[in-house]
């Protein structure tokens, strides 16, 4: 069965620190990959997605993610975080022939000024 692992459950950083959140998935076929973010009191929203092409994907608010097929990974990065990045981040995957998203357990990021 497909699954998504997010290794960091809770990350605490100071502003301007660099961020990398790990995401690994298990599925042997072609996949679409996503990162969603949920800011406090708000709905889940799409941060970035990978369907095909350049494995380095740029998203909103300075976030990027790199798809490494050989490692089944899709880690999220940001060079310099801000207090407003405090949120919960979810990695998700779906197989090309389905609409069903498989989510990881989420990573709660706290950024202190």
């Amino acid at each position: 069965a497909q699954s998504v692992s997010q290794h960091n459950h809770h990350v605490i950083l100071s502003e301007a620190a660099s961020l990398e959140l790990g995401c690994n998935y298990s599925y042997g076929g072609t996949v679409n990959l996503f990162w969603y973010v949920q800011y406090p009191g708000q709905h889940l929203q799409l941060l970035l997605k990978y369907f095909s092409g350049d494995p380095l994907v740029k998203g909103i608010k300075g976030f990027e993610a790199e798809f490494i097929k050989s490692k089944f990974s899709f880690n999220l990065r940001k060079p310099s975080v801000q207090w407003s990045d405090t949120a919960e981040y979810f990695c998700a995957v779906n197989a090309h022939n389905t609409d069903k998203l498989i989510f990881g357990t989420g990573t709660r990021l706290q950024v202190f000024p």
Partner: protein
Amino acid sequence: EAGVTQFPSHSVIEKGQTVTLRCDPISGHDNLYWYRRVMGKEIKFLLHFVKESKQDESGMPNNRFLAERTGGTYSTLKVQPAELEDSGVYFCASSRVRSSPLHFGNGTRLTVT
């Protein structure tokens, strides 16, 4: 455009009672999804509607859960009778076409006591 709206935002019920959750997707979005997050765990797929038809209901936990989307507009998810393990946040999402990113609602937090 108005986003996906869910009602109620919170519901507290006793074991054995019935609860109905409602989701209004973005106008014109044929695809409607229900997901659930149990405390501390991953967000799990429940089912997918295309217009009024159930496209995939493989994630529905058991026959105490009934989802409908009469007329292909809003959807309801009824839990009858509710059990303690049904507690969690129920998310609804919609999309215009199957390959487009999902727009999520704020979720309904269900607590069964």
